[in-house]
Every structure is written in C-alpha cells, then in structure tokens.
C-alpha cells in the first residue's frame, strides 16, 4: 500500500510502549497493534488527534505517502 504508518518510529522516538500509548489514547492494544502494523483500513480523526496529542507530533509524522513502484505491482 502507498500509505506507510510510522507509528512505531514515533513511539521509539518518544520512548513510549504500545501498552502505555493505548492506555493514554484509550483504545485497545490489539487495535493499536493493527494500526502500527499497517493492517488498518481506516483511522478516525478522533484517534489520530489523540495519538498526535500523546506523541506530540503531526499526522504527517505518523502517516506517510510513498508512491508504489510500478515494477513491484
């Protein structure tokens, strides 16, 4: 997929564990893990806002667009 989720990078930068972030954002660890591994199909604005607030970052720091390589398609 062309959208890359850099949640793990931001969590590592802020030295925050998955459990701690899930508690602060108030979503389950399983759901946060789906988001972190790029398995999610959509993200709510409220969730994105909460993650940005807790990690003190911008949405663009978590979600990055990278064009697919046509050779790999």
């Amino acid at each position, binding site marked *: 997929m062309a959208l890359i989720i850099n949640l793990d990078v931001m969590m590592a930068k802020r030295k925050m564990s998955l459990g701690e972030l899930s508690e602060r954002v108030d*979503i389950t660890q399983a759901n*946060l893990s*789906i*988001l972190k591994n790029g*398995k*999610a*199909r*959509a*993200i709510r604005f409220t*969730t994105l806002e909460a993650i940005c607030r807790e990690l003190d970052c911008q949405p663009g720091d978590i979600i990055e667009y990278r064009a697919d390589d046509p050779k790999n398609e």
Partner: protein
Amino acid sequence: MKKGNKNLQRRILALYIAFFAAIIASFWFGTLGSGLAKGFRDGYRVSDQIVNEQAYGNQNYWVGVYYDLPSADSEIDIELNNPTLPDGTKLKARINRVDLMVENNNTILDGSLWKGLTTLMGTPAIFICSWLLVIGYAVIVVMMFLIIRSLRRSIKSENVFDRKNFVRTRIIGALLIVCAVLSALINYLTVNKAAKLLEGSAVILDTSFSVDFWDVLMGIMILLIAEAFAIGYDMTQEQKLTI
C-alpha cells in the same frame, strides 16, 4: 444480550424447528408416504417374480423398472364406462405418466447384472449422475443445517456476518442449480433409453430436455442472498479495521 438479538434468536430457532419439521414431513409424505411405499410394493412383487422364475430353473432372469416416464402424445386413450352418467357423456382417460417394466432372461448378457442394467436400463452415465444427484441434495440439506446452527451461534457471539455463512450459502445456491441440471440430464438419458425400447409401440415418450427452472431460480435467489451476506461481511471487516 440485546432485545433485538433475542427476537432474532427466536426467529432463527423457529426456522431451525421448521427446517427439521419440513425434512421429516417431506420424508414421511414424499418418500415414505408414496414413493417408498410404491417402491416397496413393486420391489416386493418383482423380487417375488424373480424368486419364482429361479425356482423354475431360470437362473439368469431379471426385471428392471423405469419409473414415472413422461408421455408426450398418447395414442392409447382409454374409454371408460359409467352407467350413472347422463346419456351422451363420454369419459376418456389419457396416460400422461408411464411405468415401464423390462424383463429379460439374460441369455445374451452372460448372466452379468451390470451388463444387463447398462444395456437395457441405461448407460453408466445415468447411474453416475443419479449418485451425484443424491450426494448433491444430501450436501444441500447438511449445508442448510450447518448454516442455521452457525447463524444461531454467530448471533450469540454478535458476529452474524461470518465468512463461513456466506460461503455455505453460495454452495447451496450453486448446488441447487447443478442438481436441477443433473436431474434434467438423468431424466433425458433415461427417457431416451426407454423411448428406444418403446419404438413402434403406441406409447410415445416426451424425450425433450427440460430443466426445472423453479429450482434454477431458487438457486439464483440463494446466490443473490449469499452476495448480500458477502457485502455484510466486507462492511463488518471494514468497521473492525477502522481504528
């Protein structure tokens, strides 16, 4: 459990009971009531005939029966007399369905029952198709039972749009269509075989290939329902994977 779910559970339970009631009723009235009773009666008569022939030393004697053949254009209308009817009234019975018994002393067929059956009663394709048809309908009944059971369970666990449910529904729809075509094929092969035996006689059979389109329509409807289930499953997945 939510109130809506309870109502849904009750409806599914009612369907569950109705499903088994319908199976028992169809078995009792359709198979035991007429078909099996007729088959048992005829089977008893035929086996009695075979035993008698064998008792007289005719070891290779066998009898086969073609059941319920459709008659196309009967030349053997039977006039019936009823003295209680007013003068000038005529009664004519027209034969629409025919049971055909085939007797053979099996002298040419080397005593092989299989050879006898395939030569005079059909081709191996008819027997294979008949077995496939029986298996097809059995799978449909089992799948229906599994779907209703799985629906009850998935409502309890609040996960109605289960992948298994729509896959099984698709199988039922496809099997209904396949069984309708297979049944028509068996009828076509059987009637044509019997028509050859009846060549030159007064009985003319309907040898056209006719599919029961009601079954085909039902199959298409069930396939459409399965697609609705598939859309529901996709939407559930979408909702689950929205964080």
